[in-house]
């Protein structure tokens, strides 16, 4: 994989990040009321409003405000919260760290469960095992996170059963097992839905691959079922799975927002919801930007992993 290819992809990432920032900034600018009104409330005096606007630089042209914001970010300053007036950067990144743990566990369980499940379903296409798995996957992709989360809460966290706590956060570094116990339900919720998505994709890819000519040719050479499955079918199905997993991180981020809200998990998703409810624009912008750039980075890594593994891609 040439340096040129990596450079090109990084360049595109930067461009994408800029456009994302423009979109994020742009959306929050189409507001009927501006940030000053949000801070001070509807009954603020015009003078007080003007003072705040002056301080925040809200009377400058939009483009200037945007460039100012971007310039600040490049220097590490994402602005101050409209509510607490403290820098949002550190808050966002700390919350991001916690969300990443959630995401990490969810992704891990997906890889361990969803891929074998998808392969199994493809191999047993049409038979009971496949029907079972397919049923599960259909339900899994049709259920929004909040429905599943609340159902799980109702069933597992009710005082009578109390298998898992309904909320609360304990850092893993403090107490590993207690921490696990607390993040169990959020992770389970995310994992179930993500597994349903990924399993479907893997199954579909495998079915296609199993019907492709080189697999048939391999069978015609009398190769063992194991060889055909692993060295021929799986090898070729896993590549597209990487891409799919990367795209599914998008679902994951949406799911994280909801799940953190329901379980009161102090991640960046929850931060975002609070920012929305409190009209804290700066926090909202920062959170949205960070989440989107993280997603883009994940996709970049996936693309590069794909390109590295699939030798057919021409990099020029």
């Amino acid at each position: 994989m040439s340096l040129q290819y990596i450079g090109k992809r990084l360049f595109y990432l930067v461009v994408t990040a800029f456009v994302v920032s423009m979109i994020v900034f742009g959306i929050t600018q189409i507001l009927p009321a501006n940030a000053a009104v949000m801070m001070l409330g509807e009954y603020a005096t015009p003078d007080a409003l003007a003072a705040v606007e002056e301080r925040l630089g809200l009377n400058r042209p939009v483009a200037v405000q945007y460039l100012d914001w971007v310039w600040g970010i490049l220097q590490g300053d994402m602005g101050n919260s409209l509510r607490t007036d403290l820098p949002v950067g550190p808050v966002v990144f700390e919350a991001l760290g916690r969300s990443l743990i959630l995401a990490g566990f969810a992704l891990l369980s997906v890889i361990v469960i969803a891929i074998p499940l998808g392969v199994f379903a493809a191999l047993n296409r049409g038979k009971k095992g496949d029907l079972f798995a397919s049923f599960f996957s259909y339900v899994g992709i049709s259920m929004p996170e909040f429905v599943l989360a609340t159902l799980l809460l109702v069933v597992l966290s009710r005082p009578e059963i109390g298998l898992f706590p309904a909320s609360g956060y304990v850092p893993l570094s403090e107490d590993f097992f207690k921490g696990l116990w607390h993040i169990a339900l959020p992770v389970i919720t995310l994992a179930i839905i993500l597994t349903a998505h990924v399993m479907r994709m893997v199954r579909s890819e495998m079915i296609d691959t199993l019907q492709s000519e080189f697999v048939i040719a391999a069978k015609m050479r009398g190769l063992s079922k194991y060889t055909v499955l692993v060295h021929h079918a799986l090898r070729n199905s896993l590549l597209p799975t990487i891409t799919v997993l990367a795209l599914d991180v998008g679902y994951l981020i949406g799911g994280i927002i909801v799940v953190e809200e329901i379980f009161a998990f102090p991640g960046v998703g929850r931060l975002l919801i609070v920012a929305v409810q409190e009209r804290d624009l700066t926090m909202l912008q920062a959170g949205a930007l960070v989440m989107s750039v993280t997603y883009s980075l994940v996709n970049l890594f996936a693309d590069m992993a794909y390109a590295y593994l699939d030798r057919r891609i021409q990099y020029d």
Partner: protein
Amino acid sequence: MIDILKRLVKQPQGLIGAILFSILAIAIIFGPMIAPYDPETFHFGSRLNSPSLDFWMGTDQFGRDIFSRLLWGARSTITLSLLATLMATVIGCTIGVISGYIGGRFDEIVMRFIDAAMAIPNLLFSLMVVTVLGSNATNAMIAIGIAFTPGMARVARSVTLSVRTLDFVAAADARGESGLWITAREITPNILASVIVEGTIRVAFAIMLLATLSFLGLGAQPPAPEWGLMVSEAREFMFKSGWTIFWPGIAIATVALTFNLLGDALRDVLNPKTH
């Protein structure tokens, strides 16, 4: 057309999807007439009841009949989701086909924008739009429509690119047909199949997203019988009566399931590659 439907129901997914869809259609069209109670009427004596003969699905914290609320809510949920998806499909396809056909620098620039827009996860995107526009069901629909547009554009563009290389497009080019003719009459009819399949599945996502936004308080506002809102309102009482959460949740999942099944079945029917 008829024989597409016939082939659709031969598939198990198509059959179940079609059945569910018919039930949905009945609920939407006749819902308010079938509903035994008015969705906003409180029945103070029967709050948080389990399902019974009087209240088939039980009641919520205000004593409102859940079943009636579901039937009334079906209209807005499904209609808004369909509208959002339609909006995204029409706008997205236009962008995608034009960009895919023109190609070159224009296409590259458009793709950069689409990629960037897709870097923002759907929920996040609609969340931000709703924050800006104000929290109500219509704005939620608009937000979802905008959020889905880049995805549809990308699908439309991708199919356009593969159709564009086919000789009948070259033949039209060689005849000197205008770009408008080629995109509208030569290319578009050939991408419709993929677009319809993708669109149908998108409806499922729209339903889930709409419910999620309402759940977060960013969509329909009380006392609307919107399903996501019903779950959110019931959270406080979920340990006292799980039914208040269960029924709306199942309803959302069922409707989404319907469109997922239909979408998959349509994919197999309209693109005969899989036997």
